[in-house]
């Protein structure tokens, strides 16, 4: 059950182009960051880069069909303070959404490992939605040698 509209590379590129336009209109907002702009388009608000969210992937991996991905968020995972969701996005895949992981205080720990497909070398993005409503962002560059057509 996917959340929200199906996001294609085309809509993602359009968002990046619009973000560039926003930069022209509002130069005070700082340098445009394509990952933050894409996350804002997908999740409604701009996330803040944070060391509390760690996205661990190999910098170079031979096979784009099955690239290891681990993520971990520093959080006490209590009712008052926990991670709700972590989204993973691959901006240069034909379909940019990869997966969304829904945690609860009963998870105990906001940490997962899985394997994903990457269609080409790119910056993979993770966005964590925290129980206080804040959005955290982490990204990591992955070079794949055989492209895994997603």
């Amino acid at each position: 059950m996917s959340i929200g509209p199906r996001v294609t590379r085309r809509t993602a590129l359009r968002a990046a182009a619009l973000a560039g336009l926003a930069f022209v209109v509002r130069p005070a907002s700082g340098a445009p960051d394509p990952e933050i702009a894409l996350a804002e388009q997908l999740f409604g608000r701009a996330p803040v880069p944070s060391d509390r969210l760690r996205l661990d992937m190999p910098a170079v991996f031979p096979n784009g069909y099955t690239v290891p991905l681990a993520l971990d968020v520093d959080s006490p995972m209590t009712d008052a303070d926990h991670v709700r969701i972590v989204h993973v996005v691959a901006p240069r895949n034909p379909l940019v959404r990869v997966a969304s992981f829904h945690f609860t205080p009963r998870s105990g720990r906001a940490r997962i490992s899985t394997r994903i497909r990457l269609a080409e070398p790119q910056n993979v993005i993770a966005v964590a939605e925290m129980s206080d409503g804040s959005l955290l962002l982490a990204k990591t560059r992955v070079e794949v040698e055989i492209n895994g057509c997603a």
Partner: protein
Amino acid sequence: MAAPEPRVRAPSTAAKGEIIEIKALITHPMESGLRRDGAGKLMPRKIINTFSCRYNGELVFSVDLHEAVAANPYLEFYVRAEESGTLEFAWHEDGGAVYTARETLTVT
């Protein structure tokens, strides 16, 4: 396609409050809907789109999976052991099929 086969590895016992690691995998091609067959026709999308883990009936962890999750989707995650009972796992496939697995946990 062979019938998808769920596999789970979880501890059978844990101390109260312990955070246990669970490994869950299902054999599945995760057909993305972007590939063409030998005749050049797009092959319809058929993926596992949702995974859930319930602990004595309560949803404790779930995942929305999209086309870019690798074939034979593998998930390693955590659950806090609170009381003895069952862990139920469900994989939902496009088209409505659901594959399940269950493990018993004894909390001491």
